[in-house]
């Protein structure tokens, strides 16, 4: 059954790739500024490798990051394009392995637990080291480059009123609250960064847990702002955190594993020229950048991911 599904994904990928290739042509010609760098530095980069297709998962941030990678590569003369909406990790890791895409904006912690479900590292450096090791032993065709400082990870949030009322700054401060209620995705109940982690790292027990399956989306936010729950797990770069003036609690014990943005690339598409481009992107990418990119993308104008990415690249001198 798995093989059939993968085959369907691959077949669909092939079709989409053709469409994506058609779609990216006008972008190339309309952006006049592409011409000069392509002529000057293009021969070095593009000559060394084939076309690079950057995949992304079906959520805005992933799509924007893929457009940023592709835009930065194109600006340096590489033949890069994007392939959005691939689906969940099973699907896009499969697409990387069979070569239908070459590059993917990943998150260190989640990728690590996917490759090695028994991994326990949580601090950024430990996670990155463990990830490199796990990839080398289990997915030898793939590798990760230098991670960015930018992190998109689970974060525990409270309303500003609740934070003030109980003088909350860190997850540790929640220990003093009786009958604490918390909303998060269902997996929070069993994952190391969830209910078990709250007890292990901060000694917090007896949490009343409400599983809401929208990954910190509107239902979770509404549960928090309407006072149905005290704490909500929302991804740290979600624009609703700022929009609702929520307070994100610090995690001094690294209960929640690091999730730095990192380029995951096929080894046969990787070379020093590609590394230089992507490392320059990662060097500029901070959690604040992600928050701003997401806020722009979710904003009233509903811009295209490619346009949001192009503006960011220009602002940071990368394109």
């Amino acid at each position, binding site marked *: 059954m798995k093989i059939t599904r993968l085959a369907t994904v691959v077949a669909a990928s092939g079709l989409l790739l053709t469409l994506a290739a058609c779609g990216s042509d006008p972008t190339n010609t309309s952006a006049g500024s592409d011409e000069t760098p392509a002529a000057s530095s293009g021969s070095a980069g593009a000559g060394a490798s084939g076309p690079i297709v950057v995949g992304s998962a079906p959520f805005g941030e992933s799509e924007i990051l893929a457009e940023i990678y592709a835009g930065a590569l194109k600006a340096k003369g590489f033949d890069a394009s994007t392939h959005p909406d691939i689906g969940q990790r099973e699907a896009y890791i499969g697409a990387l392995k069979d070569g239908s895409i070459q590059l993917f904006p990943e998150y260190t912690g989640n990728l690590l637990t996917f490759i090695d479900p028994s991994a326990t590292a949580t601090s950024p450096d430990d996670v990155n080291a463990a990830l490199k090791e796990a990839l080398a032993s289990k997915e030898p065709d793939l590798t990760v480059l230098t991670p960015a400082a930018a992190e998109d990870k689970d974060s525990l949030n409270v309303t500003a009123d609740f934070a003030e009322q109980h003088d909350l700054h860190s997850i540790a401060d929640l220990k003093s609250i009786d009958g604490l209620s918390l909303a998060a995705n269902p997996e929070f109940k069993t994952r190391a960064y969830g209910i078990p982690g709250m007890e292990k790292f901060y000694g917090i027990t007896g949490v009343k847990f409400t599983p809401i*399956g*929208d990954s910190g989306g509107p*239902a979770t936010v509404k549960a928090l702002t309407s006072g149905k729950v005290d704490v909500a797990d929302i991804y740290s770069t979600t624009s609703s955190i700022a929009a609702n003036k929520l307070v994100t609690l610090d995690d001094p014990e690294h209960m929640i594993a690091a999730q730095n943005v990192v380029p995951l690339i096929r080894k046969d598409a990787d070379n020093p020229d590609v590394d230089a481009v992507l490392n320059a992107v990662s060097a500029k990418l901070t959690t604040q950048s992600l928050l701003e990119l997401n806020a722009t993308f979710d904003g009233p104008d509903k811009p295209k991911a490619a346009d949001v990415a192009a503006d960011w690249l220009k602002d940071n001198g990368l394109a």
Partner: protein
Amino acid sequence: MSAFSGGFSWLADGAHWHGEDGFPHRIAQHLGYTALTVAIAAVIAIPLGLWIGHTGRLRGVAIALTGALRALPTLGLLTLVVIWRGIGLTPPIVALVVLAIPPLLAGAYAGLEAVDRATIDAARAIGMTEWQVLGKVEIPLAMPLILGGLRAAVLQVVATATVAAYIGLGGLGRYVMDGLSVRDYPQMVAGSLVIVVLALVLDGLFAVTQRAFSPQR
């Protein structure tokens, strides 16, 4: 195949058959959501359907309305009601009621329309009031189709009540949502199997009831 055999082992595990997370409690919750939803939907849709069928008025509107309701995605509607009302029992019940109204409404008005006009005229000719025509002639004759609508509504709701788990409520959707979130496929398969069996049992019960209400031949 491993997920399937794993699903059966998960079902067979005695630990999954008691307590708050156990099947009996989840099945009871699931049936509770279904019963509440269908009851509310029936109170809205059946009188409306009977009125439309009896008078022949607003038939076009009813068809357009039920078509439009059927096209509403339940999960999207659920999220919309959550944003409006917050989490709780209201959002899934509203979303499921919207799902249950079209078959109930269609069953009621189509059932009345299917009654032979000559029979109704005969009932009026012997001096029955409009209420008597409805209660003694039309509804009994339309009963198989009304029950058919109820049967379709119950089946759709029992299969879709899993969405309640999306916003933290119980029911059999819990196994599907919790299993999906940690890639515990045996748990998902076990939950799905119970939903399928529940739907088949309810459908069987309706088949028997519907036959009992069919006109004697």
